[in-house]
């Protein structure tokens, strides 16, 4: 196991006594809440088996497994149960959407192409959440498939580093639908531009590893994100990023079906899509991860192209042109013959001078022309880059920043500072102005 996940699990592990022998990977029972109205068993209940079971056995076995055998002797049969088959009462009941009036609207965060995002407060618990209003104005085909995919992807890809969806709420009319998510203070894009100093190598490792774990989880659940970019990565003040905006996400199958080529923001778009491949798969998300990795290192987007042709030439300038060797079969792609690649050699090393060899190796594997040979998220998480010095920084050690989304302004401390060694060389010449 690589370093960041160990570091994360240590947070919960250190609270346990040292003779507690349970594996730290196992879920601790106290953290899971199962909301379920329980009724006293009645003789005419249609579910004799579930209502007569002692309360302890009603919890999903995956949860009560580690600690239950002693505490709940009634659940003696539970260790033999599959953790994937919890007892019936562990399943949530069928409930309708709640009303949006359960939330109090605070401020407007942003307006994306798929809807408006508000910050809001849960009237009951006081928690701050983000409400994303879906755009449903006079849709021709009923509920828009893209929104449906977004909701389903968020629901199936629940993960530590995917923005947690809480519920869907409805307004007064059928066209008012809101996705309720946890409010996360920053998006990585804005943060990169306002941060006083760029991320350290150790911090980049932590963030990249978190991103990879989320991508691996989505892919394991047969979901492609299809729009990974820094503005879609949210970050909280506890050093955790959360993948957000599944507005372009969809499920994929094996064999791959035909999917639209109109995906991924241009700067993060993989070469096979640019060249008009008819099918594509998980590798397109990994290309985007490579672009994000590069952006974290450079503190600016790697490929800032204005059009698809320019994008392809920028890629070839950085990586060298694709060849039949580096990308077997690329000439068969619809647009491959219409495009000439100017550069002759790779300039990856020159563009990223301050990264170690292993770092360049990982970047090169993410930005690999051939989608077949591009590294998978699962493999990338095991890459030596994450185990060499400097090690990934523990998320708790990240500094925090004022949240622009929450309307917090950066407080500038107006006091003279001690002379600084390097950095702001402008200061020295900046006398009169």
């Amino acid at each position: 196991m690589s370093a960041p996940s160990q570091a994360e699990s240590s947070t919960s592990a250190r609270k346990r006594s040292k003779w507690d022998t349970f594996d730290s990977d196992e879920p601790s029972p106290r953290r899971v809440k199962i909301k379920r109205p329980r009724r006293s068993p009645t003789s005419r209940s249609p579910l004799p088996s579930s209502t007569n079971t002692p309360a302890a056995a009603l919890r999903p076995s995956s949860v009560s497994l580690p600690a239950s055998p002693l505490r709940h002797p009634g659940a003696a049969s539970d260790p033999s149960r599959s953790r994937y088959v919890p007892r019936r009462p562990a399943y949530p009941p069928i409930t309708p959407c709640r009303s949006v009036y359960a939330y109090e609207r605070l401020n407007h965060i942003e307006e994306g192409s798929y809807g408006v995002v508000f910050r809001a407060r849960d009237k009951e618990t006081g928690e701050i959440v983000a409400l994303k209003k879906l755009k449903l104005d006079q849709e021709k085909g009923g509920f828009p498939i893209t929104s449906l995919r977004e909701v389903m992807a968020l629901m199936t890809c629940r993960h530590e580093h995917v923005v947690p969806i809480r519920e869907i709420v409805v307004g007064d009319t059928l066209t008012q639908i809101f996705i309720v998510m946890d409010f996360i203070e920053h998006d990585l894009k804005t943060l990169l531009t306002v941060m006083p100093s760029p991320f350290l190598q150790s911090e980049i490792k932590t963030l990249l590893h978190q991103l990879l774990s989320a991508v691996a989880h989505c892919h394991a659940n047969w979901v492609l994100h299809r729009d990974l970019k820094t503005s879609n990565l949210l970050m909280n003040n506890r050093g955790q990023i959360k993948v957000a905006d599944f507005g372009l996400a969809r499920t994929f199958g094996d064999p791959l079906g035909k999917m639209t080529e109109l995906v991924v923001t241009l700067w993060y778009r993989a070469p096979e899509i640019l060249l008009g491949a008819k099918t594509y798969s998980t590798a397109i998300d990994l290309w985007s991860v490579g672009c994000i990795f590069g952006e974290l290192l450079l503190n600016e987007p790697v490929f800032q192209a204005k059009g698809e042709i320019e994008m392809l030439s920028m890629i070839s300038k950085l990586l060298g042109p694709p060849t039949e060797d580096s990308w077997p079969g690329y000439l068969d792609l619809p647009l491959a013959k219409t495009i000439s690649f100017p550069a002759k050699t790779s300039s990856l090393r020159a563009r990223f001078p301050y990264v170690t060899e292993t770092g360049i190796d990982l970047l090169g594997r993410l930005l690999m022309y051939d989608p077949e040979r591009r590294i998978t998220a699962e493999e990338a998480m095991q890459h030596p880059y994450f185990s060499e010095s400097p090690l990934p920084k523990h998320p708790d050690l990240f500094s925090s920043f004022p949240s622009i989304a929450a309307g917090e302004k950066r407080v500038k401390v107006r006091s003279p500072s001690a002379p600084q060694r390097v950095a702001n060389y402008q200061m020295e010449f900046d006398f009169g102005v």
Partner: protein
Amino acid sequence: MSLPHPLLYPLASAAQLAQTPCRADGIPAWLEEDLRAEGCRLIQSAGILLGAPQVVMATAQVLFQRFWYVTSMREFSVSQIAMGALYLASKLEEHIARMRDIINIFDLLLSRLRYSLAHPTAPPESFKYSPMSYYSNEYYTYKDELVIAEMQLLKRLAFNVQVQLPYNTMVNYLNVLGLGRVEGIAQKAWGFLNDALQTPAYAVYPFPTIACAAIHLAAREASVCLPEPPEHEPWWELFDADLEDMEQVCGWVLRLYRRQDEEERELVQNLLLGGRREVRQWLDEVEPKAST
């Protein structure tokens, strides 16, 4: 991880089972079950005409069954929700159907049913379908109904429209039990899984229970002995199923094969065609009788 397991799709709670919205409105249990089954058969036939893969019809039927645990048939028409469920499922399974196709197919199926009710003795071939015109009011009425039904399904199920089907699991179970190659068993059990879609089973029990129930029925029918008490440990325990739950599922499935009372069937089909208006009218007629 403190996150809820994604496999935890919603199931009707004990309270929802004890008193469904339909029964609260005075619709008797047998009638509700028959209307649910009739609606599911409508979804299945429409899906076949649509050329959709079985997974679309299966998903649609599960969503349809769930819906009636939060809504009464007095409030929404069975055929309207069936149509919405099929459309929604076609989106969920990435096999998107055209609204017009779905509407035409439902119109055909309902017209045929109407004809056979009006002419009980006429041979089925005598039915002639005249399609509605492209811009007819009828079409737009259907379309509004379809959009509303889809939205209501999403809203009333709180967008928890993920469905876990037991087919692949059941095949694995059969192989574990050494029945994978026994003549006819897999086919039979598969058929029982299909038929169970017409019952509330999928909205009430986790999928391993349903898979076990189908195997149970198929083994009985093929006279195959599986390890059972008192001589052996019960085989279904291996798959985390409970006998009572399985028997409930089997009961629902076997009920589908009973000989239906002629009068009852006519009532069910009339209520299906007439929708909520017919249901309300019927309830108003029956209610005074029931209270005396």
